[in-house]
């Protein structure tokens, strides 16, 4: 079993195996995304409360979900990397960070663009927004630490540890901000009503969510392959592979 995992998780094996997967993931992400956007932008009805502005939902919500999902992937694979010393896991974590950061960024930007028409301000200091912002900072911290430490192995372990500590922190932040806000219930906190989901809105939303996941899967594979090439640059399999290119 152990040997099987070791062999299966060797960068060389991964490199060979991942190429077709990338193709499948990216093609299906594209198809689902296009169909989801078509349904979302053309078919879904106008929201009676928010007007057309709600159509931001089809990118905002999937991006927000992904930003959290990717962080979990990053933390879990960092944990695997630290505990079982599996290099591939470290690579997946390192490859996930920039993708997750860009999802968090998209969620923030689209959210605040949505906030202006809905709340009259680009930004309010409420629980969800604040914890998303801090999530972005956690990603940035991970990336900064990763690039600041020269020794690759230490960099992986150190930033992996940070990712894990960050996991402990995320729920704490979330509940602390929430509690802090509800204590101060007032004109400040703009509660947004959860739009009662019309089925015609829900379907494109879910399609987009799946498309984003597939997109992430394709991207993380591509980036992990790069990491594998770079980190194994002195091993024979990379040398032979590059010479064939």
């Amino acid at each position, binding site marked *: 079993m152990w040997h099987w995992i070791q062999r299966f998780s060797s960068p060389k094996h991964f490199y060979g195996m991942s190429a077709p997967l990338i193709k499948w993931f990216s093609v299906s992400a594209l198809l689902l995304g296009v169909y989801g956007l078509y349904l979302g932008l053309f078919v879904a009805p106008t929201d009676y409360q928010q007007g057309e502005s709600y159509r931001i939902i089809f990118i905002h919500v999937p991006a927000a979900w992904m930003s959290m999902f990717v962080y979990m992937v990053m933390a879990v694979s960092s944990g695997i990397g630290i505990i079982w010393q599996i290099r591939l896991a470290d690579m997946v974590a390192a490859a996930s960070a920039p993708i997750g950061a860009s999802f968090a960024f998209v969620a923030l930007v689209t959210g605040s663009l949505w906030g202006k028409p809905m709340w009259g301000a680009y930004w309010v200091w409420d629980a969800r927004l604040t914890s998303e912002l801090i999530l972005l900072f956690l990603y940035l911290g991970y990336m900064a630490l990763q690039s600041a430490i*020269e*020794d690759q*192995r230490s960099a992986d372990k150190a930033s992996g540890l940070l990712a894990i500590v960050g996991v402990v922190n995320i729920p704490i932040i979330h509940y602390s901000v929430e509690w802090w806000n509800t204590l101060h219930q007032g004109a400040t906190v703009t509660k947004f009503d959860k739009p009662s989901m019309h089925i015609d809105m829900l379907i494109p939303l879910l399609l987009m969510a799946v498309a984003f996941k597939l997109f992430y899967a394709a991207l993380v594979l591509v980036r992990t392959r790069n990491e594998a090439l770079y980190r194994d*640059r*002195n091993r024979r399999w990379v040398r032979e592979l590059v010479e064939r290119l």
Partner: protein
Amino acid sequence: MFEAKSLECVRDDRLLFNDLSFAVAESEVLQIEGANGSGKTSLLRILCGLRLPEAGQVLWQEESIISNREDYYASMVYIGHLPCVKGDLTVLENVRSLLDTRSLSLSNEQIEVALAKVGLASYEDVPGKALSSGQRRRILLAFIELSQAKLWILDEPLTALDVQGVTLMESMIMEHKQAGGSVVFTTHHGMQLECEMSSVQLGRRSRG
């Protein structure tokens, strides 16, 4: 007693050594040789368990040092390139706080005897920052002397020592060997030990 098993070390892009194995018995003195940048310091840090080798392992009394740190550290002492001396503590306090890391409580007299031996008699109360670099290294010599460790791992122990200092270090190693202890060390300068000495050679090809 002490064994390195097919160690491999990679720094940045370069393989420094691989499949390096050797053993150190009691009363054995081992010199690690090699040009600048051949990986001596890296090897010694691996032997201490401070750095993890890319492959292979280090055994202390047949057990891996990583899973058995406490036993191993109770019987070894390491000095590296760095002085480990606090400018704000006196010589005596410096030695004492080094010994504290090993949970050794010695009397002032015992420490003073060792300080006298390494040529720091009457310096007990001088703060570290007022010492010259050679005198700083001598604090470490006193620490090794008092550490009651079986295995000494010394990285460039002759650094900054003048001629008398070198002789002192040599005689300390000889004494330790006679008492059944082992020593692993590196040096660029010749160490004249009047005893047999094994050696490990690193990084054959030197560039430039």
